[in-house]
């Protein structure tokens, strides 16, 4: 009986997570377009629903009903596989992410995470690394020059930025003496990691921007020079998969930044419910992502590589060494 309840709970949590992740792009696209509009002194979507609130619905319906076109020369199997490969990992990652300690519903304690892995951080990085296959296969299978170029760039970009990103969190792991995200947040109950690890945060955030392929590092889908990059040939629902995946990664990076460096659900100044604090912090970082997008121009490809290998990598390594020395002293 207890087993069934536990299983049911897990199934419920997973379903809830999937629903949130699938629905989140709707408000996020609206927000993104609104913020873009106002930064450029426009109004953004205004005509569908109140202040364009229903615009994402209209877009969603449009994407669902559009022709699902596969280019004649494309590798059909990989072409169909790629969007799924891009979409699944960001969803899987959220299994390991805690959203809080626990809440009590009807007298029962319900934990706000699907599983508390003791290597959660490693799991996150391992799984999110698979996402890049979706992008690479997508570009390769399309058999289009723009798409292949986008994929090549993604390849190089992902390899160069995954390394500093991984190094950047080692400082955090050293401080918390654990790779479990839950323990990392608990270790920040008094002082957030951003105080001890400003360099780590900087490296992680910049690498996160690159990981999410957002401006200023969105070279793989640079509209100006590559059409739409790796998803040039995609349309309809498959394109929507890439879109959802992108927003899921934006959410993931924001969540990771909050958990690793900004004390997770630990409150500051005002004692709000922990979950609310968590959501507020994540929302702030999502906003920062969008804000960056409409402030900065795109980096050139060689600049991107130079930043990755010549700035972020040494910085993250120095960060590890200094953290180690200070911890040992």
């Amino acid at each position, binding site marked *: 009986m207890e087993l069934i309840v536990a299983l049911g709970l897990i199934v419920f949590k997973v379903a809830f997570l999937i629903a949130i992740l699938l629905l989140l792009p709707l408000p996020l696209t609206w927000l993104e377009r609104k*913020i873009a*509009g*106002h*930064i*450029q*002194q*426009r*109004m953004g979507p*205004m*005509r569908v629903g109140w202040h364009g609130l229903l615009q994402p619905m209209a877009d969603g319906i449009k994407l669902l009903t559009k022709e699902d076109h596969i280019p004649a020369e494309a590798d059909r199997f990989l072409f169909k596989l790629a969007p799924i490969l891009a979409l699944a990992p960001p969803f899987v990652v959220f299994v390991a992410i805690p959203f809080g300690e626990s809440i009590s519903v009807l007298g029962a304690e319900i934990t706000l995470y699907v599983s508390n892995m003791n290597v959660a951080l490693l799991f996150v990085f391992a799984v999110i690394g698979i996402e890049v296959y979706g992008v690479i296969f997508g570009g390769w299978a399309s058999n289009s020059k723009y798409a292949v170029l986008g994929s090549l760039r993604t390849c190089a970009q992902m390899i160069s930025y995954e390394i500093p990103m991984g190094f950047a969190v080692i400082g955090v792991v050293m401080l918390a003496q654990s790779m479990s995200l839950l323990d990392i947040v608990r270790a920040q109950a008094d002082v957030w990691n951003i105080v001890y690890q400003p360099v780590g945060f900087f490296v992680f955030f910049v690498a996160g921007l690159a990981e999410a392929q957002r401006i200023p590092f969105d070279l793989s889908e640079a509209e100006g020079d590559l059409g739409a990059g790796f998803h040039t040939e995609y349309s309809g629902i498959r394109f929507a998969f890439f879109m959802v995946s992108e927003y899921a990664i934006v959410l993931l990076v924001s969540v990771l930044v909050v958990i690793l460096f900004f004390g997770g659900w630990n409150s500051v100044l005002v004692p709000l419910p922990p979950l609310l604090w968590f959501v507020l912090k994540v929302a702030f970082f999502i906003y920062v992502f969008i*804000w*960056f997008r*409409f*402030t*900065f121009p795109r980096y050139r490809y060689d600049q991107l590589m130079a930043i990755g290998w010549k700035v972020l990598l040494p910085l993250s390594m120095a960060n590890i060494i200094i953290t180690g020395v200070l911890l040992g002293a």
Partner: protein
Amino acid sequence: MSRAQDRAGTWIGWVFFADLANGLALTFGYMFSKPVTMQYPDKEKWLPYARYRGHHFLKRDDEGEIKCVACELCARICPCDCIEVVPYEDEKGNRHPAKFEIDTARCLFCGLCEDACPADAIALGQQYEFSSFSSADLVIGRDDLLAKPGKAATGGGVVAARLNTKKDVLVETEETQGYNWWRNIRRT
């Protein structure tokens, strides 16, 4: 400040991302400035100036007779070849157009017909809302042209309006003073 100090300052600025922070502050400021969008046709509508070249109209003289003498000069000068005039002679022996058709689908609104007309009979007026689903509807005949609105007396105002999907843009209030296009542009 010496040159070396200046350069050091620049470097320190770069290390702390002063330039990026400046950019972010600027866009953040813009985010809370008023949009310059004119919401036509949902909310507002622009009134054209007197010099605006919109839809053509034909004029009548003081007796209410059509001014056009069907000389076909406008048809000649028209670079798009979109005016067709067929003359007739009335009882008093005056020439008038029996048929006067403008194909506004081809017209480029250059206003040459207005300049060429010796009888000051044709001009380009203030109407700019005459889109249509069929290009046949855009061929306008003599009687319709006589009924079209003339030149705007004032202009540049923006009036409250809303879209009536069946007919037209409905003007709700009148406001004639000029519109300052730069009113909401932020300057820093």
